[in-house]
């Protein structure tokens, strides 16, 4: 089974995507928070997009690691959105992004501890029950040292096992964390529970002057990351890989060329 490559839907490229005839991305990934219950011009465009492309969803505000109560009304609205557009694949970040019911607008890392595993697993089960779908949790980039009873790797495997959810493996995130925190991304990938990995991501990162890598999604994917995909792709049963680009979106042809580069690394 081959891996198809999709593209993240951003407003700047929505119209251009509708006019594409050939060389379409295999699917589009949408952030529900950006499109739920939206009407008018953008609602109409989104409806057209949904008729032309297969969609997957990548949430931004679930905050699965937070101590706040789950936002049940939001989850119910999310389910309606996913059902309305026949979106079966729903992913989120293994992180928290709210505190005291306030949105922090960033996916912040949780501690890699047994307590976190239990806390998150309970919440994931609740979410899966409401959404009637498996939740796929992404390995996130972090920029601070994390409280570690468990290694990052053991933590992801433990959450996936205990919560009976799936894993979104972001190649770029593994690479960026590996560089920033000095571990081998190949070893990480070789030890992750690949039977749980059902969705893949990749994007471009940016290097700061001090050598710190930022997961900026604003430039071409680095060759080293494509090499990581090429050398490890056989480990996975996932059939979808998403190319993330959230800035520098002026030229759709450039994005399609990036997709070609990814597809080449998957051959």
């Amino acid at each position: 089974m081959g891996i198809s490559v999709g593209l993240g839907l951003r407003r700047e490229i929505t119209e251009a995507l509708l006019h594409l005839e050939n060389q379409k991305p295999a699917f589009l990934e949408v952030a529900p928070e950006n499109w739920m219950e939206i009407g008018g011009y953008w609602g109409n465009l989104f409806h057209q997009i949904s008729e032309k492309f297969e969609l997957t969803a990548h949430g931004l505000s679930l905050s699965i690691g937070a101590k706040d109560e789950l936002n049940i009304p939001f989850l119910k609205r999310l389910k309606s959105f996913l059902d309305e557009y026949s979106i079966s694949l729903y992913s989120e970040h293994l992180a928290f992004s709210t505190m005291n019911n306030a949105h922090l607008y960033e996916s912040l890392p949780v501690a890699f501890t047994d307590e976190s595993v239990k806390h998150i697993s309970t919440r994931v089960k609740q979410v899966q029950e409401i959404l009637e779908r498996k939740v796929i949790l992404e390995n996130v980039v972090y920029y601070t040292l994390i409280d570690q009873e468990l290694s990052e790797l053991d933590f992801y495997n433990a959450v996936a096992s205990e919560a009976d959810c799936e894993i979104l493996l972001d190649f770029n995130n593994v690479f960026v964390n590996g560089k920033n925190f000095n571990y081998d991304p190949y070893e990480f990938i070789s030890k992750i529970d690949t039977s749980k990995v059902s969705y893949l991501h990749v994007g471009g990162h940016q290097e700061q002057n001090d050598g710190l890598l930022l997961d900026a999604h604003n430039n071409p994917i680095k060759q080293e990351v494509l090499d990581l995909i090429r050398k490890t792709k056989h480990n996975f049963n996932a059939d979808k890989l998403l190319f993330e680009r959230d800035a520098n979106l002026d030229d759709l042809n450039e994005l399609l060329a990036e997709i070609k580069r990814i597809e080449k690394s998957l051959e």
Partner: protein
Amino acid sequence: MIIVICYLNYNSMKFKKSFIFGTSFLLSSAAVANSNNLFETTELGNSETIKESIVASNNLNSSCDLTVLAPLELCCAYGNPRDFKKQSRKWKRAARKQKRIDRRNARK
């Protein structure tokens, strides 16, 4: 109107966010699943004061659904949600105004 309020409120978070990330490098064991002692290890203030300032800056957002902020087109890339270059004139004006307020507050 709600959107504008949320936007302004969101924009006023820029400083707070920078602060959070600047601080985050000092937090050796801070990321403890959003518990009350999240910021306990920081050298820049105790957890309560930092948490209160973040939550205060989010006062409106806490009662404002994230989906209402859709005009901002949120994403999960580092820093990108703070890039307002491509927003409409109305948003740009609001961003400039907030920037002035932030600068004034920083001088105090």
